[in-house]
């Protein structure tokens, strides 16, 4: 009898933590997505392009390097889901939203950086990903990822578009 209660506690605690992590994680994610959509909508007239050279008819007065960096980590629940995926393979959907948010946030920061510097467009946008290794209590695994977006911000003589 006692051992069943003990078993219940020992299984219940991790399951409870998982559900808690899911609840907190999805609330945070929902809020972040709402913020992303609103800011993307607001800044939609600010072009961020992957072109290496500016269009010939743009009259450029100044250029600057701009960057936006986002460091994200996994929550307990996403890690659990990804762990199960390790066994059977397939899309790690729980990481897709995480990385999607990080990329969009990084690009938005590039825009915000460029806008704050009085620029009108960003070209040659690049995205890079770096894995952060865990340092304390390491058993492999990862502490998180950094996504850096960078590009060349252009100050234009007059809005050419």
């Amino acid at each position: 009898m006692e051992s069943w209660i003990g078993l219940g506690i020992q299984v219940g605690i991790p399951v409870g933590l998982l559900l808690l992590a899911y609840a907190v994680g999805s609330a945070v994610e929902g809020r972040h997505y709402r913020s992303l959509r609103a800011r993307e909508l607001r800044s939609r007239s600010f072009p961020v392009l992957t072109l290496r050279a500016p269009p010939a008819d743009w009259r450029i007065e100044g250029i600057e390097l701009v960057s936006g960096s986002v460091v994200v980590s996994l929550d307990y629940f996403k890690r659990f889901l990804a762990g199960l995926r390790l066994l059977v393979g397939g899309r790690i959907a729980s990481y897709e939203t995480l990385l999607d948010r990080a990329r969009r946030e990084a690009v938005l920061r590039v825009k915000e950086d460029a806008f704050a510097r009085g620029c009108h467009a960003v070209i040659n946008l690049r995205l890079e990903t770096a894995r952060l290794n865990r340092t304390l209590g390491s058993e492999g695994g990862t502490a998180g990822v950094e996504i850096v977006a960078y590009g060349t911000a252009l100050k234009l003589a007059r809005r050419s578009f």
Partner: protein
Amino acid sequence: MTFEPRTPREDVNVSPVHPLGEAATLVAGIALVVLPLALAVWAAVEIGVRFLPAGLEARWFADLAPDAALGGDPRREMVEALVGRLARHWEGNPYAFRAGVLPEDAPNAFALPGGVIVVTSGLLDGVGSENELAFVLGHELGHFRHRDHLRALGREAFLAVVWAALATSGVGSTLPQTVSSLAERGFSRDQERAADAFGLALLHAEYGHVAGAGGFFTRLPDAEGGVGARLSSWVATHPMSAERLDALHDTARAAVYAEEGTQTPLPATWREAAQ
């Protein structure tokens, strides 16, 4: 060149999967594969050990407890001799038993595959008479008689498969290891009762009475202050409840064993050896 500002579209990079649904599907799917596999391994071991001759068992598991690992306690040979005397009353005993002493304060005893009984030095320090020790040893012999020590292998194989799956997925670290030991504890209670009955029968056959059978357990709490901690490891695998003591009495009464008798004292060198 023209740039047309557009409303950003929703991302194509995110799968439209609900995380909880995915978790449920994955857990169920993995359980569906791993559990039958683990059960099959369990069943294979359970059935296999029934046909495993004791001689082969001893040979297979010889490495598990080589002579050198049986310990240098001077009481080891006396324990082994006592095991030998008790085992004579087991008709058709296929084992050549060996005994080992583990230097550890917590009183405990184990039956290892291959016919090895290991007792801790804490147990040897705690017993008050030869009869008390004989009951503990007889109990372990009971595990050999019912081949419980091999069935534990089946359980362990089952748990090993489950843990391997969990460890591969990285989920193992989120679940406490003790779940497995709890499961083991739950499994073995009936086996403990049956081993008790066998130990009692051996005790009766050797001494003509079963005095001292439960003595080690009832006496210890008085003799040692704060014994709870010391007993914990024994209790964990050998629940010695009032209920189990009652069961001992019932077994003794049903088999018409004399519960009173003169207990054989331990050799004079016993205490010296403990120092």
